[in-house]
């Protein structure tokens, strides 16, 4: 046994404590011996909620995340009330303010920020023995629970308060003090409030809302000194004017707390400089949170901090040894003085090419601004009404191309399907049209205790059918639950039963050479075999190992066990492959003969240009396939389905390219190719696009000059989406190459059941192009080779007609030995029961 890894964390605030939680959640507790230093004499509390304590809406006890018991329960040694004084990097020891020495293998610095207090005149206490702080009586910063308690003690005895600083923290302090019955003035150096987050118009609108709540706002005021001898009595401004006050809160900004790191000789710029692995200039020392500077950014919001601690915990525990943190896109949703505000990305247009959409309704204190760059959302400010925030957030996070009508982003024009309007829908509105789930049922589930999007879907079945309502369900969940909504880590897993995103999972499967679904459960899910994850894992293993996979039929959905599509009456549909939709009289005759012989109940021409034989029993399948003598059309599985064609240049007067030949070639090459979700393709011989190639997962359209346009990510099902133009190429061969390359990349990168119409926007068209067309990541040759291997390994599953994998593969109903049963498949059953080898 190796001795436990000594992890010492300096700082017990939002970042330090979160990191320890993240490590504990990943590793077995005994792998680490964790020691923490915390300046404050208690457990860990939610600093964001301090304004609630100040306002009296929350009791101090309510904002604790981890009380002291939590640390002992989790074998974490917390030196509460003991700061770290010095780090000896040579000896790898941290010395505490009480003289204790803590040796470390890894040290994490999470010292957060310190309030910035400008050097005002008359700031220091007149009598140093008077009062505990470094400042004059009645002067406070707003950082800790203790600050809060001291401020409240004074607020009870005085009438007026001033807050220096019109940023978020200052306004929160002002809100709290107004709530305590004080006259409050906010003094701000800049020309409008919250200039870090808001543009001028939004700042002025916010100011108006604040003034209505009784807060006086003084802009462009530079404070030079404090008035009063013992206690504070007022402020002196540069312009000569003064302001009376009995209490002052200085909220003029924060600075990363780098003192300790600096004395230890670590590289410091604005904050403690860290790399993508969150390591400082000393590889044994990491830093997270407000004290860390990553790629030039110091974050002061909680979401980036969580991303940092999660990444570092992944690395430390070896769950993902090479996990990198690549920075965060900042966005925030908050209430300022009771006014809703959501901010994401940039607040100003960069240049004349940026499109700036604004809406202002001063009467209600509503202000909206969108920054649109290259058709995508680069930033947004929503003040006073944030109902469009969830939808905009999604568009922002995913860089999804925006609809042409920008106004529809803010005002969904009474369209019940639009996600932004979800909050306004009546309770009886049906949201999930597959399972008949109303908005009221979703709200009920939330009120009933569901805390994540997934929990709501599981409880109501909303979104579990075709999935097209998920965006809307999410919008309702976000609108109703608001800040109480918990991030569901499982949302990022490839399958719910294995706690890994696809990339991690693939790496683990390869590294540990896991060839079967049960091996994956054994090694990566502690043996817990989640039935809902089996089919996704089976598909992934097939993609990774091809024919070298260890097959487990029970991991497949029924359709993939019997190679036909089960229908509501338990009969099956059989669709033979008709390459490119081009058939012959002889094949049609064969199909007709089969339809007669087996009393097929319906013969249906499908949307994919082939023929569906419906109403066959499972026992009939092998014989039907043999009589057809045609390969499987894979109409039942998550795989490449068909390539729809038009008659192209061979017959059509308008055709400029031989789309029929190309479609046949595509279908011959890629038949049976398994993928995370189905893929429907098409080729069109001219831009009239009779085969609808622009709304297919991949479509090729011939244009004049012998060239072909390739579209990806199109759809015309539960979603309708025009495909994105991936490339224009000079030959059908190039179409086939890029098609195969795209398919292979999609197989490797897409989530299970993620169609290309979600995959392409998620990856971003630019990246898709870079990888597939420009080979910017240098993987094109590998993708092509993998695809060739898969193509070469294709085996028609209908050959199992002669080689069933189990004697009862095609027998759904087995008789009890002595029971009287009408046996329709008597020979097969007798065979099965004798236990003899399969394959008569």
């Amino acid at each position: 046994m190796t001795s436990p890894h000594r992890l010492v964390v300096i700082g017990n605030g939002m970042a330090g404590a979160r990191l320890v939680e993240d490590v504990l959640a990943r590793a077995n507790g005994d792998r680490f011996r964790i020691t923490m230093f915390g300046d404050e004499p208690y457990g860990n509390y939610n600093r964001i909620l301090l304004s609630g304590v100040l306002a009296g809406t929350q009791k101090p006890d309510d904002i604790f995340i981890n009380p002291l018991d939590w640390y002992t329960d989790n074998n974490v040694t917390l030196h509460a009330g003991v700061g770290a004084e010095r780090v000896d990097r040579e000896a790898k020891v941290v010395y505490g303010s009480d003289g204790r020495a803590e040796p470390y293998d890894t040290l994490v610095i999470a010292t957060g920020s310190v309030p910035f207090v400008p050097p005002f005149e008359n700031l220091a206490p007149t009598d140093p023995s008077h009062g505990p702080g470094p400042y004059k009586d009645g002067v406070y910063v707003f950082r800790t629970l203790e600050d809060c308690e001291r401020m409240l003690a004074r607020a009870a005895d005085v009438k007026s308060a001033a807050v220096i600083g019109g940023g978020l923290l200052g306004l929160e302090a002002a809100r709290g003090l107004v709530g305590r019955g004080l006259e409050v003035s906010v003094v701000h150096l800049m020309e409008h409030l919250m200039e870090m987050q808001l543009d001028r118009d939004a700042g002025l609108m916010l100011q108006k809302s604040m003034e209505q709540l009784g807060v006086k706002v003084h802009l462009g005021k530079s404070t030079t000194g404090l008035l009063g001898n013992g206690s504070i009595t007022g402020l002196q401004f540069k312009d000569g004017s003064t302001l009376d006050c009995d209490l002052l809160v200085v909220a003029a900004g924060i600075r990363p707390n780098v003192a300790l790191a600096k004395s230890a000789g670590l590289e410091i710029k604005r904050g403690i400089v860290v790399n993508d692995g969150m390591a400082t200039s000393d590889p044994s020392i990491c830093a997270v949170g407000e004290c860390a500077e990553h790629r030039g950014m110091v974050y002061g919001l909680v979401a980036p901090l969580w991303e940092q601690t999660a990444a570092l915990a992944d690395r430390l525990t070896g769950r993902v040894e090479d996990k990198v943190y690549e920075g965060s896109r900042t966005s925030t949703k908050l209430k300022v003085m009771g006014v809703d505000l959501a901010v994401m990305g940039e607040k100003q247009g960069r240049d004349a090419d940026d499109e700036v959409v604004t809406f202002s309704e001063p009467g209600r204190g509503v202000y909206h601004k969108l920054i649109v760059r290259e058709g995508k959302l680069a930033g947004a400010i929503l003040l006073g009404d944030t109902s469009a925030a969830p939808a905009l957030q999604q568009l922002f996070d995913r860089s999804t191309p925006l609809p042409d009508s920008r106004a529809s982003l803010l005002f969904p024009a009474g369209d019940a399907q639009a996600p932004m309007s979800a909050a306004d829908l009546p309770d009886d509105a049906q949201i999930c049209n597959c399972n008949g789930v109303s908005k009221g049922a979703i709200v009920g589930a939330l009120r009933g205790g569901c805390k994540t999007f997934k929990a709501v879907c599981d409880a109501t079945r909303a979104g579990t059918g075709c999935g097209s309502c998920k965006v809307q369900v999410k919008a309702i969940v976000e609108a109703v639950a608001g800040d109480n909504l918990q991030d569901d880590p499982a949302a990022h897993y490839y399958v719910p039963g294995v706690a890994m995103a696809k990339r991690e999972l693939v790496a683990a499967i390869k590294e540990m050479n896991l060839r079967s679904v049960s091996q994956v459960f054994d090694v990566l899910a502690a043996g817990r075999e989640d039935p809902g994850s089996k089919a996704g894992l089976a598909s992934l293993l097939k993609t990774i190992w091809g024919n070298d996979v260890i097959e487990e039929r029970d991991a497949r959905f029924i359709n993939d066990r019997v190679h036909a599509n089960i229908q509501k009456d338990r009969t099956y549909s059989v669709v033979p492959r008709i390459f490119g939709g081009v058939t012959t009289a002889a094949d049609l005759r064969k199909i007709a003969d089969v339809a007669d012989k087996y009393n097929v109940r319906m013969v249906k021409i499908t949307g994919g240009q082939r023929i569906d034989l419906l109403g066959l029993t499972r026992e009939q399948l092998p014989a039907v396939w043999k009589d057809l003598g045609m390969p499987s059309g894979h109409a039942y599985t998550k795989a490449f389905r068909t390539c729809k064609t038009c008659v192209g240049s061979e017959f059509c007067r308008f055709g400029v390219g031989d789309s029929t030949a190309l479609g046949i070639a595509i279908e011959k090459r890629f038949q049976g190719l398994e993928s995370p979700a189905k893929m429907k393709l098409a080729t069109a011989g001219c831009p009239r696009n009779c085969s609808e190639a622009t709304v297919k997962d991949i479509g090729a359209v011939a244009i004049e000059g012998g060239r072909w346009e390739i579209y990806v990510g199109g759809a015309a099902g539960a979603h309708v989406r025009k495909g994105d133009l991936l490339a224009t190429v000079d030959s059908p061969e190039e179409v086939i190459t890029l098609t195969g390359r795209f398919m292979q990349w999609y197989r490797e990168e897409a989530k299970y059941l993620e169609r290309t119409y979600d995959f392409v926007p998620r990856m971003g068209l630019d990246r898709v192009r870079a990888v597939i067309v420009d080979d910017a990541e240098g993987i094109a040759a590998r993708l092509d080779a993998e695809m060739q291997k898969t193509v070469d390994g294709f085996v028609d599953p209908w050959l199992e007609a002669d080689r069933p994998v189990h004697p009862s593969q095609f027998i759904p109903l087995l008789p009890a030995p002595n029971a009287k049963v009408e046996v329709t498949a008597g020979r097969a059953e007798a065979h099965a029961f004798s236990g003899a080898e399969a394959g008569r």
Partner: protein
Amino acid sequence: MSAVVGTHAARQVNLGSLERIPIGEGRTFAIEGLQIAVFRPRSGEVFATQASCPHANGPLADGLVGNGKVVCPFHSYKFDLATGCPEGNSCAPLTTYPAGLTSGGDVVVTLGGR
């Protein structure tokens, strides 16, 4: 051997070798006019439930099995194999039947008597 012991008393029915069911899957058995789904999870136990999903008559024996649960192939309703209770849905519970193996590896299901 199937043995019928009285009309109302529990009776055990031998369904033959466990090998009739592919590992990890289920099969529907016809027993005296009754249809029963018998499951052979990889965990080594044997379970028996009513054959059809109460929701829309889906063939439960064709569902995905794991962690003591079966997921109906029609609309993904999930049930506990031991208790028949629905999970994450408000479907009626499944009727379950005691099931086990003989020393010779035959599946035995107990009907009635409850």
